[in-house]
């Protein structure tokens, strides 16, 4: 990997391009031909039943070792993303906000955030931040998600409530300044206030030069962040793509309406 970013992103540039992606985990084929193109300045929503492959898609993009890609390709800014290690994908600007962020006992959140932020900065040719400079930076950044600085002193996610974990994810997104952010059910398990804070944070971080893929079950997140495209996944494929009205229709009519499972088979 080069130690700096390629030329700056313009709105409308293709950032992520997924073609006919097939992937399996432990012998089960989960993704069966996903194709998706995401450009700078776009917000995409990915919806679908549990088990339709949404989370798998996000993990394959981020490079989780448990998933094997059997066919297809993912290009990130024209580069073969699948050839990169998970850490290099992150350094290059691909971010995954986890549905269930893991707890890491004994590892200080502050130190973790600093090492992570510096890995990305180094890749972009920016100066690494020392402990003091980083602490100032992170305290400023925490304001975006109204997070208490006391969480810096704790172990990573350890004993955090569901809402606190999600805020910590958005804090990481803010520190890493990704070009493509995939947020896997960041809204689930949040109360109304926390949802508003998280949604506002994501909106603040969404720029004309970045793209966001929101994986969600609920319209309420999409009320706060209006998507340009809504995709519905079923059985490892994108079954239908529309605009925000598609999400509204799903909210009213459910998924059966899309995949026709309520239609009696002849």
């Amino acid at each position, binding site marked *: 990997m080069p130690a700096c970013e390629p030329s700056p992103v313009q709105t409308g540039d293709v950032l992520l391009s997924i073609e006919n992606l097939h992937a399996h985990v432990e012998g089960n084929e989960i993704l069966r031909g996903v194709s998706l193109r995401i450009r700078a300045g776009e917000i995409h929503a990915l919806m679908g039943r549990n088990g339709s492959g949404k989370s798998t898609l996000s993990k394959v993009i981020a*490079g989780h070792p448990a998933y094997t890609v059997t066919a297809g390709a993912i290009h990130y800014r024209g580069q073969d993303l699948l050839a990169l*290690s998970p850490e290099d994908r*992150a350094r290059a600007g691909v971010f995954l906000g986890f549905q269930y*962020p*893991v707890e*890491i*006992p*004994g590892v200080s959140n502050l130190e973790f955030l600093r090492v992570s932020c510096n*890995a990305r900065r180094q890749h972009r040719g920016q100066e690494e931040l020392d402990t003091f400079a980083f602490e100032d930076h992170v305290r400023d950044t925490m304001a975006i998600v109204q997070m208490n600085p006391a969480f810096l002193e704790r172990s990573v996610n350890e004993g955090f409530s569901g809402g606190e974990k999600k805020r910590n994810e958005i804090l990481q997104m803010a520190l890493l300044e990704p070009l493509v952010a995939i947020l896997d059910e960041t809204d689930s398990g949040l109360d109304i206030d926390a949802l508003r804070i998280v949604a506002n944070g994501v909106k603040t971080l969404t720029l004309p030069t970045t793209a966001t893929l929101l994986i969600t079950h609920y319209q309420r997140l999409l009320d706060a962040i209006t998507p340009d495209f809504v995709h519905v996944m079923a059985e490892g494929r994108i079954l239908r793509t529309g605009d925000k009205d598609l999400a509204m229709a799903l909210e009213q009519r459910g998924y059966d309406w899309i995949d026709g499972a309520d239609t009696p088979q002849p």
Partner: protein
Amino acid sequence: MSSAAAVEALNTTPYRYGFVTDIETEKIAKGLDESVVRLISAKKQEPDFLLQFRLKAYAQWQLMEEPDWAALKYPAIDYQDIVYYSAPRQKEQKASLEDVDPALLETFDKLGIPLSEQKRLSNVAVDAVFDSVSIATTYKQKLAEHGVVFCSMGEAVKDYPELVERYLGSVVPIGDNFFAALNSAVFSDGSFVYVPKEVQCPMELSTYFRINSDDAGQFERTLIVAEEGSSVSYLEGCTAPMFDTNQLHAAVVELVALDDASIKYSTVQNWYAGDENGKGGIYNFVTKRGLCKGRRSRISWTQVETGSAITWKYPGCVLRGQDSIGEFYSVALTNHYQQADTGTKMVHVGPGSRSTIISKGISSGHSVNSYRGLVNIGPQARGARNFSQCDSMLIGDQAAANTHPYIQSRQPEATVEHEASTCHISEDQLFYLQSRGIESEAAVSMLVSGFCRDVFNQLPMEFAAEADKLLALKLEGSVG
């Protein structure tokens, strides 16, 4: 990189301390019999009580069998194929540091333990032991101003014979076990610490043990006595060159804490562990015990064990004093073909005595890492309490972790709690860190260091960062 690949990277760990110092040494012939015991004693011009101590121990040792209950496999040790005394040849009396052979000073410089006046570690007094002898002790003068004695065992025998006679063997009797008996017969040098009443030792004390010879065993002996109301913190570090043969290290450490005294004893053990195929490395058979003799006395063992082909050690506390406290905090990391059988013994004698055991074992490669611990509560120990927590972490799928807790209580009013857990290094935790741009080796080392945090927090400040670095070095493929 997957966790499997990260584990692969662990298997290329360099050992920074593997060099040999080319120095003329005075060695006696290999082998052990009564004349060798007498010879060692004569070389050190010892008083008769010590010669008798050695001879008694040698006689006992001959009647004893090498223990075979530990979960360790190694070829039989040929005790006649070991050199029992090896000393760098230098001037008879080292009046000052200027008289120490520059090659020796350079050796300790390379090990990161500068002894010369200008470069000394600040606020840490160091006793440097090279094979069988102590070559220098720093800050002696400053310590003496506070009445603290810190010198080699050899000097202590000459200058404070009555203290040595009174306490040597009082915690670990000569016939305590096979290796302790061997040590008692042939021990060479080690450190001696005496802290008088009500004195809080003003600096960290530290002994650095270096094995240099390929055929000499190291049998050091350390004795620390803390009088009423005093306190001291002591740290030992150990390294050895890389040889493809094994060297025997059989040490004995005795601690005595009187009323309201407190001793904190920390170890960072990084003896050469053998190569990636298990060839070479130190056999580390060590007996360490503290006697909490006085009321409210406190002894705390903290160990970070990363080296040695074989580790056999159970630093323990005999809690004789009423309301005395014993603590054991341990991190044992094994890799390649290393074997560790380590833990503690907490023997509760006095009423109200309390003990805490926190053990973290990390096994990777083909290594075997066993925790073995005894909590014994005697009939007089009313209201005694113990809490034990033993956690094991496995890296890869070829390593083994065992836990052998022994709990014996003859006191119905005692409380004993034991918690144990075993986990694999979690693929999800590793992925989480990687997905934040942290490369896999650094991620593994971050996870391991997080796993050990409770124990590292117990180390003296100056060494906690060192221990963290040492662990990272052991885990990373990079040259340090």
